[in-house]
């Protein structure tokens, strides 16, 4: 009989805080009735508590395991390390900001104002529920837990996308979202069953080791493995399994839901999905890739070449298609949906180069890990800012198309100036945070062989191209004034946008070194995940068999 120890329970503090928030919102609804202020305040306090627990806990945190042993020879089901704490911190801070955005939107004269007030409790429960799913997604190495986490993230998101009932676009968006989501998660679960069948374990650490053992045909002088080509069954099951994470990140063959859902859902949820869903998906992908890379050792050759090629091609396509489709959009939410696909492409490029160069033997994590952590931090600020500005214009005018932004520099100078800052940061202009993020990403790509250099070329070409449609928005705001009246913008909203823009400016200038150290620390002990389960698979399976018989 397994019982949790006190240490294990306290390691999962952030997870407990998120679960507690859900319960507290529900109890709050029983006590205070359907009060949107109470529900929102509890959600914000819960999010801040979670973020605080992460920030207090991650200093000098090693790799800690908690939960039942996940399958034969496996490590326990949940892991609490710097990396998972960082992602939970990011997601819960974002949760607080989205809750704040919902608060601000409550004052606007929207057609759905009454429904928003009435259903606020459900909104916050679903929002925190999907945040909890994401928290599980970034802190596990177990197939069962990954399946549960992906579903737990998805199910509330489907409901959130269709939150505006009877609204034609929202209804259609949620229908498309749940159909794509259900299909991809079903295929992911089937892939997981094939992996379990071949390697007799639910733990991806054990599975990764078994894969590498099965393929190794020798070692190089540097101590890395020389690998055979993978078998067809292995390829099919890994690809099927990764589809779930690719759907969350909205990589190219699985991106169709993204623009439709972003356009149809209300703007708070669009913002939530644009950052949190991608962050969690990337966290999961990085964890899996780190497990594989750590098994390979330094200078491995022929290292799962098809995986790296497939991910590289996917990343390049994601980036290019996102940028080219954004080019002719007129709806702002849809435009930035494609922009977010393009940014997912940049981050996937860094995922693609991790595998061949492993580097686990020396213990130092691959620079791409820290580049992605840095990128996602800056990306959160930029995207929040852009969608916040779009939301404020929407609340004031009821319009989301690019025409509503004409002459914004006169109608609401603060919003327009901040928006320009966010846009140029998204492009990657030098004094802003977007430049630092892109710089480290491209530097990591550049150092990693011919595929990396090809990806750098694709990324730079895409950046130049993306300048056009970002600048188009800036041009509409500054130079094509068609005499629309000035808009009233909430003071808190202006303040939040200013703080976001200042943070981006500081990251781009004064804090550039700090943020690099920060992301290095957060991603430093990713490879340590694999150190725990040193027992060979056969023995572990025998032990499990004995336990089972008894």
């Amino acid at each position, binding site marked *: 009989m397994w019982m949790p120890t006190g240490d294990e329970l306290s390691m999962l503090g952030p997870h407990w805080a998120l679960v507690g928030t859900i319960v507290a919102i529900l109890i709050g609804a029983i006590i205070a009735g359907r009060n949107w202020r109470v529900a929102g305040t509890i959600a914000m306090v819960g999010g801040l508590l979670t973020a605080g627990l992460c920030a207090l806990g991650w200093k000098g945190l090693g790799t800690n395991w908690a939960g039942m042993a996940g399958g034969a020879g496996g490590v326990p089901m949940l892991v609490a390390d710097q990396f998972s704490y960082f992602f939970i911190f990011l997601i819960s801070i974002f949760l607080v900001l989205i809750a704040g955005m919902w608060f601000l939107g409550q004052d606007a004269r929207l057609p759905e104002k009454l429904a928003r007030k009435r259903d606020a409790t459900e909104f916050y429960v679903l929002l925190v529920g999907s945040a909890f799913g994401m928290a599980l997604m970034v802190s596990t190495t177990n197939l069962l837990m990954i399946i549960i986490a992906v579903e737990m993230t998805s*199910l509330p998101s489907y409901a959130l996308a269709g939150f505006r009932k009877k*609204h034609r676009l929202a209804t259609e968006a949620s*229908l*498309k979202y749940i*159909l794509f989501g259900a299909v991809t998660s*079903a295929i992911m679960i089937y892939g997981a069953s094939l992996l379990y*069948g071949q390697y007799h374990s639910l733990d991806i650490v054990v599975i990764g080791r078994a894969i590498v053992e099965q393929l190794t045909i020798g070692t190089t002088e540097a101590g890395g493995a020389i690998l055979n080509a993978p078998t067809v069954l292995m390829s099919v099951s890994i690809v099927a399994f990764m589809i779930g994470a690719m759907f969350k990140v909205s990589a190219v063959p699985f991106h169709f839901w993204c623009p439709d859902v972003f356009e149809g859902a209300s703007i708070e949820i669009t913002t939530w999905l644009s950052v949190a869903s991608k962050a969690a998906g990337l966290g999961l992908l990085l964890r899996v890739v780190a497990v594989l890379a750590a098994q390979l050792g330094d200078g491995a050759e022929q290292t799962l070449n098809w995986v790296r090629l497939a991910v590289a091609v996917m990343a390049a396509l994601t980036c290019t298609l996102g940028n080219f489709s954004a080019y002719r959009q007129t709806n702002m939410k849809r435009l930035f949906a494609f922009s977010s696909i393009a940014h997912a492409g940049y981050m996937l490029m860094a995922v693609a180069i991790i595998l061949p160069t492993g580097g686990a033997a020396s213990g130092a994590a691959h620079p791409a890990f820290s580049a992605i952590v840095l990128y996602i931090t800056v990306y959160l600020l930029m995207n929040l800012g852009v969608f916040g500005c779009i939301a404020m214009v929407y609340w004031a005018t009821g319009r989301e198309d690019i025409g509503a932004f004409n002459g914004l520099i006169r109608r609401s100078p603060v919003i327009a100036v901040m928006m320009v800052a966010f846009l140029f940061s998204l492009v990657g202009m030098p004094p802003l945070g977007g430049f630092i993020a892109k710089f480290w990403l491209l530097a990591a790509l550049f150092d990693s062989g011919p595929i990396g250099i090809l990806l750098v070329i694709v990324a730079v070409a895409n950046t130049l191209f993306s300048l056009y449609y970002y600048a188009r928005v800036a041009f509409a705001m500054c130079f094509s004034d068609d005499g629309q009246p000035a808009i009233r913008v909430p003071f808190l909203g202006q303040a939040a946008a200013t703080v976001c823009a200042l943070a981006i400016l500081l990251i781009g200038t004064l804090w550039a070194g700090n943020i690099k150290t920060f992301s290095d620390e957060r991603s430093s002990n990713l490879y340590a995940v694999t150190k725990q389960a040193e027992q060979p698979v056969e023995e572990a399976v025998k032990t499990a068999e004995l336990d089972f018989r008894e």
Partner: protein
Amino acid sequence: MFPDEFYDFLLDGVLTIGLTHYLILSVLLFSLGILCMVTKRNAIGILIGVELVLNAASINFVAFSKYQTGGLDGHIVALFIILLAAAEAAIAIAIFMNFYNTLRTIDVDRGDELRL
């Protein structure tokens, strides 16, 4: 009538139920599920396809768990898959109801207002 080897094969390989039989069943279910998802234009039809694929995965998990080593893991996962499928179906049908109330149809091709 047939050589002895054939009868041996029939007894050992076909009539004695083993892992292969379960895998063949699961692959059939998976293929039918994918076919269902691709061909149906009705939202409920697509959901049925998804459930078929999930059941195929459950059969895989249980069969691997029974015929190979690995303890009870597969059985537990199968239970969780049933639970997740039920939760997913509940939300899916709620969304289909909402779609029907708005557009008076659940034909997925009718949801075509969100484009470019």
